[in-house]
Every structure is written in C-alpha cells, then in structure tokens.
C-alpha cells in the first residue's frame, strides 16, 4: 500500500494560540484569494508583444510574474475590494473559515508531503465584477 508521512514540523509553531493567524496573511505570509468564476492571466513570456499595456510583467524569486490587480482591505479587515486591470471591480470580504485549511506541499521528485501552513481566513469575492466608470 503506497503511503507517505506528512511532515508537520513547520506548522507546529502556528498551533500556539499566540501565533494564530489574526489577519489576512498567516504568520508565514500566505493567504487565499477566492473568486467566483475564473481569472484570466496571460501565460505569455515577457518580451513578446503585450496584449494590453495594463499588464506589468515582473520577476520574483527567479519566476516570471504579472501584475493583475490591486487589492484594498478596509481598516477593520472585514471588507475587500479587488480592482482587475482598469475596468473591473469586485466587492468582497475577509472570511474566517469554519474549519481551518491546511496547506499541503507535494514534492513530486521525492514524494514527500509537507503541511506547511494553516489558513484561518480567506479573501472571498462571491459576486460578479462591477464596471469602473
């Protein structure tokens, strides 16, 4: 029977009540952004002619990235607004999860599984986008 042991060393420190996630980001700097439907992000390499000037290509830790929007979290950390490009706006909220979600990282090369974070909140956009006038 194939089996794999889950490494939990990293999340042990998060189980201390004093280190519990209290804001959008976990103490390890992770978060979940949930959107109804899909988010279209160009898959093209930087250097090729851009589809639209609103995209900003960049790099981060040796990986090519693209800026796709601006997120605003209200001061009370309950409401969120997401601006996609220059034309769409989504209204959402920061939701505390009924059951926390564990983030599992599967290493395909070694077969190892690591429980690397525990998320208590997610930023959720349940509604359709609104146009920006």
């Amino acid at each position: 029977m194939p089996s794999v042991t889950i490494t939990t060393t990293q999340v042990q420190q998060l189980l201390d009540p004093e280190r519990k996630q209290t804001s959008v980001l976990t103490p390890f700097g992770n978060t979940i952004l949930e959107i109804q439907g899909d988010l279209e992000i160009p898959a093209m390499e930087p250097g090729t002619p851009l589809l639209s000037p609103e995209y900003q290509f960049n790099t981060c830790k040796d990986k090519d990235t693209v800026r796709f929007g601006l997120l605003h979290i209200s001061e009370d950390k309950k409401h969120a607004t997401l601006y996609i490009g220059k034309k769409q706006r989504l209204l959402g909220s920061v939701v505390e999860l009924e059951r926390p979600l564990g983030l599992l990282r599967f290493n395909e090369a070694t077969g190892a599984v690591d429980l690397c974070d525990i998320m208590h909140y997610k930023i959720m956009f349940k509604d359709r986008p609104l146009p920006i006038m």
Partner: protein
Amino acid sequence: MSVNLHSELGLAQSSGTYKLVELNDELLAELRDKESDSRLQFKSLDKEGSHVVLCSSDKTWVVRQKDHSNLSMLMREDVVDTERVLDPSACFGLPPPISDYTGYARTTYEYETIKTEGQLSLDNVPVYNGGPNFQAQEGDKPALTFEDLVNNSPTSRKEALDQWHRLAGCMVAGQACLLSATFLHKALHVTLMSVLAESMDLDAIALDGAYTAVSKDMDETFNPYSESVVETVLNRFGKVTSEPGQSPKLWSLNRTTLATWYGVFALKKYAAKTSVPVDEFMLQWKSTFPPFLTCDIDTNMLRGHFFHPQAEQLQYISRDALPGDAKERFRTLFKLQSSWDMQDLEPFIADLNTKHLKIDSFVMKYARRRKVGKNVIVTSRS
C-alpha cells in the same frame, strides 16, 4: 491597506504541488499534541483510483475531494524584483499599495476529511487451528508480520491493534495469523483452567505466569499453546491494566466477555438444531465454564446470537447465515420469530443501517414498531 496582486505566469488550473485540506478539530488536536509521537500519514490501496485515507496514531479519516466552481488562488507576500510606480489613475483614489502578493498556485477543490473506522486488510492472513504443521506462507513468500499488516491497511496503528486483538490475531512461526474459533476456545479453556488451578488473580495475570501454568501438563514434543497464543487469549478476553513500561505487564480478564464467549459456545452446542427451554439452557451455559470460574450470566449478553421460536425457549442463529438484503433479512427474521423486542432485533440488523439512521427510524422502513410499557416491540408489516 492596498496591495499589488501578481501571479506567476503559466499557473495550471489545479497545480499538483499545493493542495488544501480541511483541518477538523480532531486533526488540530492531533497536531497540537506535542507529547504524542504521532505522525500523520496518507495511505491508499493503490496508486490510482482508490480512496485515500489520512491516519494519525489512533484515528482514520477518508479523504474526499470537494470540488467547487470558484477559483482559489494561493498567494504569499513577496517582494517583486523591479518596483514600479503605479500611475495614480491605476490606484482608483486609494492609497498607493504598500506591498505585493504573488499567486503561486491555483486550485478548484479542497480535501474534506471524514472520520471513519480503520480496517485491517486480512486477505492474506491465514487461519491457525493449532495443528503442528502450520505452513506460514506458500512457496517463497515472506512471512507477514503485524507491522506489514498495519502498513498495508487503511487504518491507524491503534485501531489496527484493537481490531487485531478483537479478531484473535496471533504470531505463529513469525507469521501473522488469526486463531480459528475452535482453537481459540480450546486455548481459552486451557488458559483459564491453568491459571485457576494456580489460584492466580484473574485481574492481575502476567503472561509469564500464565504461560508457565499452561505449559505444565503439556506434551514436550508439541505444545500448540505457545506464549504468543496465551498472549492472544489475554488480549482477546482482557485488557492490560499495568502502566506502560511497568514490568511485568498485567492483564485483567473481562468476566462479561468470558461469559458471552461461553454462552455463544453453549448456544452452538446445545441449541443449534432445536430450541431449548431458557432455564435448561442457563444450566447448560454454566456447565461449559471451567471449574471455579464465577461469572454472572444473563441471556441479554447473547443478544444477536439467538431467537425465541416460542415463549421461554431459545435457539441459536448465526448472523452470517442471514441474507444480506435488508428486505430479505427482515422477512427471514420474522419467519423465525413473529415479534421481536427491539433490543433483541438490533444486533441482527445493525450492519444494514449504512446511513447511520436512528435505529427506530431504520426499522420503520421495513417493519412495524409499537411501544409496550418500556419495551419497543417490532412486528412484520404484512
């Protein structure tokens, strides 16, 4: 607070590297327990297609993929290599962004964990009946140990051990096997007679002492009641009462379990073919006990093993012989006995209640029930 959102290029819809799993209270407690040496493990019957279970040291959960139509993007706070000043019009009147989040994985499902009962896979486990020529495995197959069984079963170690003891699992010649019911009965009887003859306390039996007592009158050439068999008897009919690490390890035998075992044996012996009056059966039941063993007996202990063909008479029935189909099972049971006390009926039908309904509600689907005093009586619908 405003944040720039980025995404890595070419993220697949559901990346295989990162997945989300629901952490229920029990799993969180397991993770929090720094004292336990427990570890979480994913197990699956094969590499593709079969259910995956998540096991801790003492619990098992089935892992189910819960799909949703939303897109979840996993993001982390990062610093992008080239900082770009945003055009004020792109800030929509908001304060300029103070940090950057980068999406590194997308997912459209979460793993749900549903508590289940761990099951030992006993397909390749032979049955030992106490014979001298026990063949561990055919041909060159390596002998199967208990640890192999745990590793090859969708179960936690503690659940596996409990089940192993309940099924009279034993190591014989380095091979994990199950003792046959007949041999287990003989081994129990011999063990009880031996420890009672030595005036041992049934609530503090040490394995060494019990094995020495059992071996006293045995043939020197072949003794089927090995130390491992005696230990299996102690585990099957008792529980360890000494503290972990305490020496010697002590077992206490459960009188109700012993009485029930002898009761079922008596039912099979005296009431299998014809019914017997209850009073007469009680005497027969007592007569099967080893001398000097005192246990309280009550027919309620044997629920699920007998029926009343007539008032004050009882007869043995094997649950294995009953039909697997619910309708057929009820029909057969009402053929044997026209009206049942709910408590007597329940053990015969409990395995059919796969949706875990309240037993009253489940019975109502196939039979009629009415209250008579404190008892619930179940009768056929027809």
